[in-house]
Each structure stands twice: as C-alpha cells, then as structure tokens.
C-alpha cells in the first residue's frame, strides 16, 4: 500500500512535468504546476505517514501551502495582470518545438536513471528507487528554463526544477533540519516574488515579456 501510494505520487510528479513540456497556454501550465505541488505534498505526506514523522508531516503541509497554492496563485496573478489581457497567453515560439521537446524529455528521463545509480545504491529502499524521478523532473525543469522565451514560462521551468530538487530531497530520506527547510522555502518564495515584480517591470519597459526583446546588454 505504502509503495503503491509512493509510486503513484512520483508518477504524478513525472506526468505533470511532461504535461508542462507539452502544453502551450500559460494558464494550463500554471494549473499543472498547482497539481504538481499537490503531488509533491502527497509524496511527503506518504513518507511521513510511513515513518510516523511529525516534522515531515508539518513540512508536507508547508509544501502543500507553498507549492500547491501560494506559488501557482502568484503566477496566476502575474498572468492576469499581463499577457492574458492582451491575448498573448501562449508560449508562441519556444526555441525547440513540442515534438522535439517531448523526445528530449524522454532522453532526460533516461539520463536521470543513468546518473542516479550511486544514489539508489546508497540505501536501497522503495523511496530510493524513485530518486531518478526527482532528478528527471529537475532536468526537465532546466530544459524548459533554457528553451522557453516567455518570462512566465521560464519562471514555470524554474519552479519545475525546484519541485524536482525538493522531491529528490524527500526521496533520499535524509531530512536537513527545520531551519534549512524553512530557509529554502522562504528563499524560493522570495525569489519568485522578486521575479514576478521584475516581470511586471519588464512589461512596463519592453511592452511585453518576450525575452527575445532582451537585447540591450551584450558584448
């Protein structure tokens, strides 16, 4: 039962990551991110229930509040203030087209399994066997980050990457202590807030948040 629930939440994580690569409308991407945040919270919850770990349960609740609710809400607000109003709510011209992106994601999943051999071998357990999923989500996030041109899509890629890293942290089964967990969450929240404010300033300065417009600075 534990193993099935664990793998179900990991499957949901990977599935939502692929959906983010596949879907173009930014509103859909934000919804998928919220679902992924909930899957991440479920993953932490399952691990907490298994280990009767009150601290991890509290962290799971925090993850649900931050990644399932707060961050998607922030993105939705940024979206409502900007591109949606001008009918530009799609990632129109990613550097890599959707079919090639999906193939690249498949390759990244294979890569994740290839590199995480030593991590699984460190302490073999059902959770450790799912570590490649966390790494794959993180690599997918990095891929989205470097191939998208809209500021908000890049922000979604950053959050995807962060969700993957957090999932890896849970799956390795070694807590880092409450101070560090709190600090990391606070930093992510603040970084996204800062980026959201910068998005609106970019919209003021450039008229739109297509990062191709960012050509003022170069050598």
């Amino acid at each position, binding site marked *: 039962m534990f193993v099935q629930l664990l793998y179900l939440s990991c499957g949901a994580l990977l599935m939502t990551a692929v959906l983010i690569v596949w879907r173009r409308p930014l509103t859909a991407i934000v919804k998928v991110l919220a679902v992924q945040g909930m899957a991440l919270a479920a993953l932490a919850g399952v691990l907490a229930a298994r280990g009767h770990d009150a601290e991890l349960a509290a962290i799971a609740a925090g993850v649900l509040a931050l990644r399932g609710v707060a961050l998607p809400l922030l993105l939705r607000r940024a979206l409502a203030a900007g591109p949606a109003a001008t009918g530009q709510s799609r990632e129109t011209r990613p550097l890599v087209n959707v079919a090639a992106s999906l193939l690249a994601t498949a390759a990244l999943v294979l890569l994740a399994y290839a590199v995480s051999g030593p*991590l699984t071998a*460190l*302490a073999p357990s059902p959770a450790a066997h799912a570590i490649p999923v966390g790494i794959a989500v993180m690599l997918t996030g990095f891929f989205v980050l470097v191939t998208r041109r809209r500021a908000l899509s890049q922000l979604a890629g950053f959050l995807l990457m962060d969700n993957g890293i957090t999932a890896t942290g849970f799956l*390795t089964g070694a807590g*880092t202590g409450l*101070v560090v967990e709190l600090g*990391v969450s606070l930093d992510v929240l603040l970084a996204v807030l800062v*980026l959201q404010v910068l998005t609106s*300033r970019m919209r003021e*300065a450039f008229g739109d948040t297509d990062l191709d417009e960012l050509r003022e600075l170069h050598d």
Partner: protein
Amino acid sequence: MTTALMLAPITVPLLGALACLVAGWHRATAWLAPACGALMLAAAAGLACAQAGHPPGAALDGLLRADPLSDFMLIVISAVGLLATAATPAWLRNEVTAGRATARTAARHSVLVQLFLAAMAAAVLAASLGVTWVAIEGTTIATAFLVGQRRTKAAVEAAWKYVMICSTGIALALLGLLLLNAAAVHAAAGTGLDWARLVAAAPHLDPAVTRISVTLLIVGFGTKAGLVPLHAWLPDAHGQAPAPVSALMSGVLLSVAFYAILRVNAIAGLVLGPGFTRALLATLAVASLLLAASLLIGQRDYKRMLAYSSIEHMGVLALGAAIGGPLALAAVLLHMLGHGLAKGSLFVCAGRVLQVTGTSRIEGVRGLAGRFPLLAGCAGAGVLALTGFPPFSIFASEIGIVRAGFASGLGWVTALALVLMLVIAAALLSHTSRMLLGDGPGDSPATDRPAAPRQASGLSPAVVALGACAVLGLYAGPLTILLHSAAHTLAGTP
C-alpha cells in the same frame, strides 16, 4: 563576549536596515550606513583577536560558528562594506541632485545594502552548509532590486538575468547539498550538513555520491562566484548596478560564494583525494581566464571591463584552490582581500566617472587626468593594483599562487594562466590609459558642463582602501597569523 562579537556582524546591519527604513534618507541619516560598516569591521577585528589561539566559538545553539576562516572572511566583508557604504552618501547625493534618484530610492538603497551585508555575514558565520546556502540565496534576493534600481530597459534586463541565472545555479547547489546530506546521514547518524562534522565524517562518505554532489555544489556556487559556465549574469549586473553596489557585489559577494567552494573543496579532497576537484577547478579557472581575456581586449564599456576583470580574478582564485596546500590557500585568501579593496575602489571611481562624464563608454572618456587629477589618480592606482603591480597586495598573492602552482605539478596550467593574466593586464592598462591620459574632449572651458560637480567628492574611502591594499602588500602585520591559521583550517593541517 565571543557570542556578542559573533552576533554583531549580523545584527548591526539588520538594525541599520531597520533604522534606514524608519528614518528615511537625508543628510544626517546618510552616515548611518558607514557607521554600521565601521562597527561591523570593529566586531570582525575584535572577534579575530578574541579567537586567536582558541578553538572555534559557537553561538545560537550551534547555528553559528567562527573559526579563523570565518573570522578572515568577516574582515573582508566588513572592510569592503565600509569602503562601499562610506562612498555611498556622496554618490547618492550627486544622483539625487542630478534627478536620477529620489530620497525614497536612496532610502530603499540603504535598507537593501544593509540586508545584503547581513546576509553575507550570516553566510560565512553559518556552522552548516545548509544555512550558508540559505544566506547566499538571500544575497541574490537582497540585491535583485539594487541591480534594477534605475528601472531603465537595460537595468531591468540585467536584474532579470541576475536573479534567473543565480537562482538556477544555486538550485543546482541545493541538489548537491541534499545529496551530500544523504551521503552524510548514511555514513554516520546525526552528521547532517555541519561543516566540521562533515570534515570529521569525510572518510566514511560514499565516494560516488560525493562526486556527483561536489560537482553540483562547485558549479552551483561557481555561478554565484562568476566562474565560467554560468557567468553570463555578471557583466550585466555589475555594469547596471549602482556603483557602490557593484563595488560590494564584485568585491565581496563573489568571494563569499567562493568561500563556500573552498569549504566544499576541502571536504571533497578528504573523500575523493585531491585529483578530482583539482581537475574540475583548474578547468573552470582556465575557462574563466580565457573568457575574460577574449572579452576584455575589445571591451568598450568601462564598468563591464571591471566586471570581466572580476571573472579573471575569480579564475585566479579557482586556480589557487585547485593547487591547494596551506601556502596557495593563504595566497587565495589574501587575494580575496586585495581584490575586494582594489575592485571596490575602482567601482567607486567608475561611478564617479559616470557621474561627471555621463557615459560609461571607454571612448567617451578622455583626458580625465587633466580635469580630475584625484579621480584619475585613484583609478590609475586601482588598475595598477588590479593588474598585479607592486606594492599592492595582489602582486604578493598572485606570486604566491603562481609559485605554489609551479611547485605542485600544475605547471602547464599555471603557465597558461600566467600568459592569460598578462594579456588581460595589457588590455586593462591600454583601455585605462586611453581614458586617463591625453587631451580632454575640447579643452576650452566652455565645454565643461557646469552641472557636473567639479569636486572629486566621496573619493576618500577609495584612497584609504587603495592605501590599505598597498600596505598589505608590504606588511600584513597581525593578519599574517590569521591568514595562516585560516589556510590551515582549510588544508586540514594543524
């Protein structure tokens, strides 16, 4: 007593931020920030004296620890912090007079700079890698709006790139941190991410996991330190940030990120032997030097020129860390201090040049020496310090690193680095001499814009810092003991 001295470098700037927030910015409160900087420097020096010969002190239930390396880094942070904050009032006054800033922007600037200083002090005092990570990411957040302060297209673009690239890089470091934590918990229960316990548990860490995690940590913190694969934010951010902020970012922020690399490198050396990180760091160092050299030769903007010179110096630090051993590491630490003082002064001068000429292009500035002798003198001395001329301390530290490099079997890499450093020095000197020497643009007094303040105000901090840099090159005094015990902390020798 030690606890109070350890808490002071974090709490003083936090209180300073609060005071700036409450009091706003006007003639009297402008000197609040330099006062905080001076207090921080006094606390750092006091801590180093109180700690000399004692085991590392701890505070806040083991959350903070001060060993000689932390003490030294605190001195670097507070010295450059004092330089930058002391130059700020004059700079801000000129900006407000010129209408490019309001009292409100000036107040916000002061608050954010104090928060930035507190985050850096927390990063070097933290007893665990986790808290260091949190504090270093905190510096990104504190400085994001400082980089984008002017709200022009270029400034907003630089701020976006800065936050995006640094957060991504630091996320890689977070993954490395989690993996190292897993390896540590697996090796011995209760090890966690505490620096000292990680060093103690190093022989039991799983080598394969450590290799992945150390690579991620070095590349991740290397992003923040401006090392090559993810350096792209640095020239933009340093070019667009207000001059005192550039001074702080280039002078100490890069070094604080490099401090994390030094600690990680020490642990990696114990687990994996010296070979692995030596190859990684030497590659990053040569790549950084190559990039800096190729982009400095045809550089057209003097603030970006200084930024690429920072990438060069981070490359030199990486080379020193790759060489390893107490002598090279002591030289690396001295290089951090010398570079912080020289680069900080140069950015202060660059900000002043920008205010009196109105352009940041190299060809737009001519004959500075004739019109502003003090400013030109400072800038010239700063560039000489940066390119490694004696008596400045960068000369001593570069010689130390190069000598250790030839002695340690990294001869070819060191020779290549030396050639690249000479190319960079030639490029810097030729760009600077074109700016400083020769005739001004139209020598008739009528072309002198009356709006530009003639007095080279706000330069005394730069003069003092360059003087300190020169004195350090001749006589490091009591700092020598601290330097050597810090280097021994890193090299793992008593």
